[in-house]
């Protein structure tokens, strides 16, 4: 009973917390741009509201793939909850989840039959570079801690102190990933406004609400992972404060930075990864 209850509670908690944080993200961005912005709860209300909105399926959509891909998105982030907060399992599975997330972006765009979706689908292949910082970060964490299990990494930090001081470049690489996944990010080329809403353009009505449900869980899992991996056992208050601070920082960066074009986005992510990887190796050797 406890395991299933644990999973259900964590999924609901992730959805509510992630939604509020994304609402907060939008609020901070609006305030920086001298706009009042919507209430913080608006993202959550939108997610729920879309479940009751009129939904029709485009004639050129590839059914049932058009719907199935949204279910897969939710499935991978429920897996993220199980591997992360519930069982504190392996970071390699988290890497796999991000790889599948990229495939979901790709296929969600192509399944709709919309040209905007198809452009986003192509950009999703480009933006696979976004996974490079995560993979390099995980490799560095393994060299420092000797394990990829989140429970082992927490145990390591309770003895040796927070990992952010031992592997700051790995933390920077992970933060780049967080920035990539945040709304209106300079790296968010798959959802660039030049292609309307990218792969989400033709997923409207309850399917959009469903995607927002998954994205709020994804945001929570990302922040939880960053705080757990680099700050160790910090308690509930630590997580709340940490998540709010990281969300505010990403909102500030996104509000003041234009969206990069696909080539620049990929090259910048690649450069950050390379510099941080070399920096991490130098720190490890010293």
């Amino acid at each position, binding site marked *: 009973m406890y395991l299933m209850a644990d999973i259900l509670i964590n999924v609901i908690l992730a959805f509510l917390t992630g939604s509020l944080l994304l609402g907060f993200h939008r609020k901070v961005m609006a305030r920086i741009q001298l706009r009042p912005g919507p209430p913080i709860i608006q993202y959550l209300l939108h997610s729920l509201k879309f479940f009751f909105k009129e939904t029709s399926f485009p004639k050129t959509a590839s059914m049932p793939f058009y719907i199935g891909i949204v279910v897969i998105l939710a*499935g991978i982030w429920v897996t993220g909850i199980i591997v992360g907060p519930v069982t504190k399992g392996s970071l390699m599975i988290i890497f796999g989840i991000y790889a599948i997330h990229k495939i979901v972006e790709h296929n969600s765009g192509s399944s709709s039959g919309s040209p905007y979706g198809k452009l986003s689908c192509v950009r999703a292949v480009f933006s696979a570079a976004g996974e490079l910082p995560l993979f390099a970060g995980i490799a560095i964490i393994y060299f420092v801690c000797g394990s990829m299990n989140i429970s082992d990494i927490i145990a390591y930090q309770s003895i040796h102190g927070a990992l952010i001081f031992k592997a700051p470049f790995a933390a920077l690489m992970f933060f780049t990933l967080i920035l990539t996944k945040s709304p209106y990010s300079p790296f968010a080329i798959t959802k660039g406004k030049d292609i309307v809403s990218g792969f989400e353009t*033709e997923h409207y009505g309850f399917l959009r609400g469903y995607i927002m449900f998954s994205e709020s869980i994804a945001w929570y899992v990302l922040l939880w992972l960053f705080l757990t991996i680099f700050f160790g056992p910090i308690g509930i208050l630590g997580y709340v404060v940490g998540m709010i601070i990281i969300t505010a920082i990403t909102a500030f960066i996104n509000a003041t930075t234009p969206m990069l074009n696909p080539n620049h986005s990929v090259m910048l992510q690649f450069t950050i990864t390379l510099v941080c990887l070399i920096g991490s190796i130098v720190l490890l050797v010293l």
Partner: protein
Amino acid sequence: MNKIKTTSYVLLIVSVLAILYALIFCPADWIVYAIAIVCIPFFVLSFGLLTMSKPKKDEEEERREEPFIGY
């Protein structure tokens, strides 16, 4: 009752029963993981398919065509 509605009801009932089974009978861990990964998304999907508002009959074709005008 149309095909989507019937399928949604079946999915909803099956996913709720599977989640309740995992909650009450505590099967092996891997079974609980499988139920959670498959049934939670299907529960939300079937719930959404049932709660979504459908276009009026005479507007349905227009809605399905609308996003692609101009291409």
